[in-house]
């Protein structure tokens, strides 16, 4: 058996030295390597610097659909059925994720199957067939996601989509990557081909490779992708949201059993900057994602049992309901501070909103205490280890480091900064980057007009429980139930769900 393996290896080396794979290799500074000798798998992340911000007006969704036309459709060599047949025994596949600024084609394979896998993987990127039947299928899925799934089956995702649409209205960040119902319908093969030609170029690609790969594999993929045409797409100016004055509220009318709430405002700080890590401490204390250490979680869920969880963010976190740790390769030049209140009973919606805003205000006005600071940074120092336990995830972070121009590793800097930052640094960052009172709020709820009336009149929102509560909780409830929000009627709009994501 051993002899056979050696013979096969020798053969492949001989073949490889004699073969070239197409173009001038993709240059060094467009390659991110993460070798892990004992990893029996090889991970690929092929990053094209394009995203939904590049969607032409009226063709929203084009970047996402183009990426799907590479990874969920035929190539010039194989029908889609044939692609699936070939991948099937390898238990390997590839897929694309599109965010506002990044499109990444991800693939992973066991090294035993690499030889059969690699030609399929590169074929998908280099030689898509762009067939009408594939486009029809992919467009139909995108439209169904917008018309059915997003509008109806997850009010939490709906609330977040409305929040981002409102904050970034009028900018290339305003629409979700899936696009809009009418624009998706209008996308043609010509649109796809033109978009592919313009953005899937050798100057616009970064190759990410990780795991137990040999040098020849890297050489091969660099040469193969080097055959992409040259060209640098025109840069898209950063999406700068308009300044908010006061609270703005978008209420989506829906016959919903509970109310989903999201809110936020733009912040001017990105990972890599010292202030980002300082804010990360404050944010983790206020609302670490899917973690009971979150202060909002303690106030709204643990103490009062109003919902399933309450979190906050300083970076976009799509599909938060599905994931417990931050995703990779959704980097963007403009972030918002965001609060996510999972669905609460409709009768407590006003109270829950007040409770959350009151805690945000307290953090901004009072800053963190020494004890809170100390415990949170101790938590984060180790908790970030869980952000990327696998090669594929670490490779994702390495690409994001390149996006943000971070010299070194964000995750390592994160841990180092937990030792360096002081309470004064954190509270200074809170004062500089967070502010209370200029915020967009999105709510998905029943009887939107009655919600509007309650909000603009600052009507008291007392809460009652089926179960006994401590006097401390009840005293705080009294304060929360009349906590003034001072929302102006002209800043509240009611939206119908059927009108969302149309054009």
């Amino acid at each position, binding site marked *: 058996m051993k002899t056979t393996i050696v013979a096969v290896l020798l053969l492949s080396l001989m073949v490889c030295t004699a073969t070239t794979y197409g173009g001038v290799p993709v240059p060094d500074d467009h390659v991110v390597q993460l070798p892990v000798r*004992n*990893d*029996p*798998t090889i991970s690929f992340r092929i990053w094209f610097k394009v995203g939904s911000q590049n969607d032409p007006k009226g063709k929203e969704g084009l970047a996402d659909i183009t990426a799907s036309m590479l990874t969920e459709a035929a190539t010039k060599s194989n029908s*889609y*059925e044939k692609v*699936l047949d070939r991948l*099937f*025994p390898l*238990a*390997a596949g590839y897929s694309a994720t599109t965010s506002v600024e990044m499109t990444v084609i991800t693939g992973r394979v*066991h090294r035993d199957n690499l030889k059969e896998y690699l030609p399929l993987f590169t074929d998908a990127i280099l030689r898509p067939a762009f067939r009408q*039947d594939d486009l*029809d*299928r992919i467009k*139909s899925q995108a439209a*169904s996601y917008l*018309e*059915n*799934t997003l*509008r*109806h*089956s*997850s009010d939490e995702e709906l609330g977040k989509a409305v929040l981002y649409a409102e904050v970034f209205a009028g900018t290339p960040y305003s629409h979700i990557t899936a696009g809009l119902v009418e624009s998706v319908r209008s996308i043609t093969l010509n649109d796809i081909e033109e978009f592919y030609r313009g953005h899937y170029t050798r100057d616009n690609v970064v190759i990410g490779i990780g795991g137990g790969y040999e040098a020849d594999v890297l050489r091969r993929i660099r040469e193969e992708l080097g055959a992409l045409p040259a060209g640098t797409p025109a840069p898209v100016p950063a999406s700068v949201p308009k300044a908010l004055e006061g609270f703005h509220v978008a209420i989506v009318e829906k*016959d*919903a*059993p*509970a109310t989903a709430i999201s809110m936020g405002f733009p912040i001017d700080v990105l990972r890599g900057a010292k202030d980002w890590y300082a804010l990360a401490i404050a944010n983790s204390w206020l609302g670490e994602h899917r973690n*009971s*250490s979150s202060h909002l979680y303690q106030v709204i*869920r*643990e103490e*009062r*049992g*109003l*919902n*399933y969880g309450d979190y906050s963010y300083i970076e976009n976190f799509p599909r938060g309901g599905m994931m*417990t*740790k931050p995703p990779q390769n959704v980097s963007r030049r403009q972030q918002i501070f965001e609060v996510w209140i999972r*669905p*609460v*009973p409709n009768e407590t919606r006003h109270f829950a909103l007040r409770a959350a805003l009151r805690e945000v205000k307290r953090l901004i006005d009072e800053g963190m205490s020494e004890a809170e600071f100390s*415990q949170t940074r*101790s*938590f984060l*120092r*180790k*908790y*970030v*280890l*869980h952000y990327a*336990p*696998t090669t*594929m995830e670490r490779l994702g972070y390495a690409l994001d480091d390149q996006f943000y121009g971070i010299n070194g590793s964000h995750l390592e800097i994160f841990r180092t900064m937990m030792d360096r930052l002081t309470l004064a640094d954190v509270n200074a960052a809170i004062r500089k980057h967070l502010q209370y009172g200029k915020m967009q709020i999105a709510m998905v709820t029943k009887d939107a007009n009655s919600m509007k009336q309650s909000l603009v009149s600052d009507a008291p929102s007392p809460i009652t*429980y*089926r*179960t*006994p*509560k*401590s006097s401390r909780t009840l005293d705080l409830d009294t304060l929360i139930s009349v906590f003034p929000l001072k929302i102006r009627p002209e800043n509240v709009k009611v939206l119908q769900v059927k009108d969302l994501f149309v054009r």
Partner: protein
Amino acid sequence: MRSRVGKVCLIVTLTGCIAMAQSIFPYPYEKETLPNGLRVIMIPMESPGLVAYYSIVRTGSRDEVEQGRSGFAHFFEHMMFRGTKKYPASVYDSVITSIGASANAYTTDDYTAYHLTFAKEDLATVIEMESDRFQNLSYEKPAFQTEAGAVYGEYRKNSTSPFALLNEKVQDLAYDVHTYKHTTMGFEADIKEMPEGFEYSKSFFQRFYRPDNVVLVIAGDIDPKATLALIGRAYGSWEKGYRAPQVSPEPPQTRERFGEVSYKGKTLPILTIGYKGDGFDPGNRDYVAAVLFGELAFGETSDLCKKLYIKEQKVEILQANIPMNRDMPLFEIVAMVKKEEDLEEVREEIYKTITEFQSTPVSLERLTDLRRRQKYRFLMSLDAPNRVAGGVARFVALTGGIDVLEDVYAAFDRVSAQDVINAARKYFVPERRTVVILKGARQ
């Protein structure tokens, strides 16, 4: 905890070291059973200083036999975070937070898992905290009732999904007496009444949270000998006393059942066809062949999927789910259909496919490809301690260990074309069938 150490005499030896020369499972592991019945499986593996720690309670919503108590196993999972006298909830949270552990839990039909991932130097702390709450859980009525509100919130969060509604209907219709009649979340009426179940919750803990009903799986950067010594001291005085509930067996189904359900929002129609199957048993050739049949007949490379999903584009989703369960789960085929008028045709196509598989042998090439796929899919899933421990959790819950993995993959290798025919003939017949169609509101 320290006071307990001197009182407990434990004889624990590492008798279970398994050499894994030709095994499917790529990591050598060690296993032990403490005198009180607690099983411990340790899987040392290369990882950047991380350890995953799973406490698997072999109780799930299947064990909710009492009337009005559906969903209680899941609710109780929440209560396990409410602290002990020694470490009240706020202290437990504070310790877990201070070590930066990633901690959570989930409940299924057949088991409940509590899991933490953390830095290896915190192993002793985690063992101390986990052993304490499993033995000494203590909470007051108000905390219990507040948590019931969070559980209802979880139900509401899920309830906007058409699949949640569909699953409720399918299980309710397919089963008459077995507890698979309800979902793991439970019937909504029972969830509403959970705040009244304080006393019941105490008995739930006493009956099910016992060492002889729990398996620990610890994977990652660990020294098994030292780990076992810590576990022996921490869990040794936990008294055995698991009392298995009497789950009523489901009588054989005699004829097809059909139901419809209406979803308030807008959705493409969804067709679910479930067949009463068998419980997990790698020694049951029919069961093992049925697992492969699901992929062969309805997987993404099946003829039917290519026809309905890629060529004719009549479905948005087509898949089969042949689950691993303790009793007799439903072997399900699910199709999300693009147009309501195609529902019947899709249903007939599914039946036609089953009929073909009941008489036409699958090619050896397809079977070989599928076996290879099963093997590599498993191997590729084991890329971090949390994924290893989480990946074996259901096998552990069903059999008490992970040796069965070898039996499962060996059984896959033995499946013949005739076995697939036999499985199709045995399970996928009208008298075992429950069909439910979900339609959305027209908007």
